[in-house]
């Protein structure tokens, strides 16, 4: 039952880190040089009105008291009111999260598939003529500034070829001609579920460029890791045995070697999900995607501190959860991974 113990101790330390994260987020938000109370009541308010707002927001109390209040509110699911949108931060997040997840999941599917194919092919033909170009592609992938790649793809696929839409999540008049009925709040899934194929095609076309831009970095990362891992596996005795039996090369590479090479790369796949999370800031800004990345950037630029606190906390929580999940998955898949 060491696995259960491991799970409990890892979750425990993740909770401790989370508590620390909440302190850092809180302190960070207090460094921001704005008069929050004045922001709420508007800049033409009288000093007395500002003071009253400060009292209502609890800003006149000591910092530790404010922190406890803040934690209490969080535990009750209240992340505060955004200064720019004047809506609860949690509602803003809930509205935008599905859009970002849609992008992230599709981007990661592309990245994992492309990364595995690139890496496996490059390992199979190591040192041959195709290995060079394949490796160059994966190095390019991890070297692109995401915000620049997005612009260049727009020039090529919108301006020059006119194959794909420029930006946004759907064509503007789609909500009048073929509105998507919300079921899961994931646009593309809802369009498919309700059989709204015109909307489906439109939404899918809008997804392609952002997802590809987002996938470039993780795809390169995964390709490099898979290649290294496969080269190591291909040295093993059981691969030589399989070759000696005359099994087809394709079966050995993709059936035996690849299967064992994926395990060690799980951590990198988890890590690249976290990279994609920060990559979404740039991708959503470039493609005007109504998701959390764009919301975060707008909040940062407007110094909308309740929103900043909310998204920073959410970012840290998802990062911790991803890492925890990777650790647990690895321990489960590979008995040799130490459960210390």
């Amino acid at each position, binding site marked *: 039952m060491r696995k259960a113990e491991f799970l409990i101790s890892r979750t425990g330390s993740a909770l401790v*880190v989370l508590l620390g994260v909440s302190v850092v987020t809180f302190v960070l938000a207090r460094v921001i040089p704005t008069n929050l109370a004045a922001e709420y009541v508007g800049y033409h308010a009288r000093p007395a009105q500002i003071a009253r707002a400060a009292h209502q927001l609890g800003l006149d109390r000591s910092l530790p008291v404010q922190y406890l209040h803040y934690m209490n509110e969080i535990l009750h699911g209240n992340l505060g009111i955004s200064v720019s949108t004047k809506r609860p931060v949690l509602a803003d997040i809930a509205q935008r999260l599905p859009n970002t997840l849609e992008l992230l999941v599709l981007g990661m599917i592309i990245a994992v598939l492309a990364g595995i194919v690139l890496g496996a092919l490059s390992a199979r033909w190591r040192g041959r003529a195709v290995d060079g170009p394949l490796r160059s592609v994966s190095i390019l992938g991890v070297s692109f500034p995401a*915000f620049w790649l997005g612009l260049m793809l*727009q020039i090529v696929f919108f301006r020059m070829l006119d194959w794909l839409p420029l930006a946004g999540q759907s064509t503007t008049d789609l909500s009048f001609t073929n509105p998507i009925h919300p079921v899961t709040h994931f646009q593309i899934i809802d369009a498919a579920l309700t059989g709204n194929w015109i909307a489906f095609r439109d939404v899918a076309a809008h997804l392609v460029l952002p997802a590809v831009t987002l996938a470039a970095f993780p795809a390169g990362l995964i390709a490099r890791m898979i290649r290294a891992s496969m080269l190591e596996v291909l040295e093993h005795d059981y691969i030589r045995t399989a070759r000696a039996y005359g099994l087809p090369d394709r079966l050995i590479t993709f059936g035996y070697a690849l299967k064992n090479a994926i395990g060690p790369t799980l951590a990198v796949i988890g890590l690249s999900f976290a990279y994609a999370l920060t990559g979404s*800031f740039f991708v959503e800004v470039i493609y005007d995607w109504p998701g959390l990345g764009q919301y975060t950037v707008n909040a940062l630029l407007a110094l909308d501190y309740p929103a900043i606190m909310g998204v920073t906390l959410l970012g840290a929580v998802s990062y911790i959860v991803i*890492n925890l999940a990777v650790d647990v998955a690895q321990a489960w898949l590979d008995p040799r991974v130490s459960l210390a």
Partner: protein
Amino acid sequence: MSALPAAVAAPDSVEVLPPLAGRRRIAAVLRKDPAALAGLTVIALFLLVAIAGPWIAPYPAQGAGVVDPNTLTLPPSAAHPFGTDDLGRDLLSRVTIGARPTVLVPFAVVILAVSIGAPLGAVAGYLGGWADRIIMRLTDLFLAFPSLLLAMAIAAALGPSLTHAAIALVVSWWPWYTRLVRGVASSLRQRDFVEAARSIGVTNRTIIRRHILPNTITPILVQASVDLGIVVLAMGGLAFLGLGTQPPGADWGLMISEGRASVLSFWWISAVPGLAMLLLVMSFNLVGDALRDVFDPRQYR
């Protein structure tokens, strides 16, 4: 017990070489690998441009931001090899002047992150016990945020400027080096030469300075060469979002964002600084890959 997956954390046993042999091996690797050598050449070239910027730019004033209404959005030509931007400024000059914040500042960021992170890691790994626990808990805390998100939040809180962006990146980058150096230091602790030094009464402070830290230089160099590329991208990203260098200053990330509004008509305004950034990051990755091949062959090959 950390917040990161085991494979991302620093390995427990890093190959430890005598410092000089390590550095000689780095030189040997770079000589033999043509891709890495090309990368190193590009980096050296960009460094030269960054230092000599104001003297070699064809239109130094425009590079620094002076507008010329007679040369708006000219495509690349003999007079302006990279074209001009929508304020009539020569892009070659802008890229040349912009090399300073884009190329030099990431070096400063990584050096500062190392000089904060490495000593902390050496202390944690060598002393162990309470010092180790406190330092590593602090490290875990910073590593719990996606680095770029933390940097963005700090940069926004301090107010947008190049210096603040650099500070923000140092704050979110040092823990990676603490983690790396701690792994090396704790494996060095058991080694004979350290035991010997301790047994003749050398103080902990001297052991860390004379025996532990010099032996961490090679793994730090390998890590730093890869990190430099990532820091260039992060700095560029901050500048692109308006959290770094402010207009009319030149910075490749900022220039990409300045060209964005008219990118569909005048592609070169964004394309040129982006290409320069891509070339720089690729060079760091090529050098980093070659170094990692030799010193950490179990990682990416």
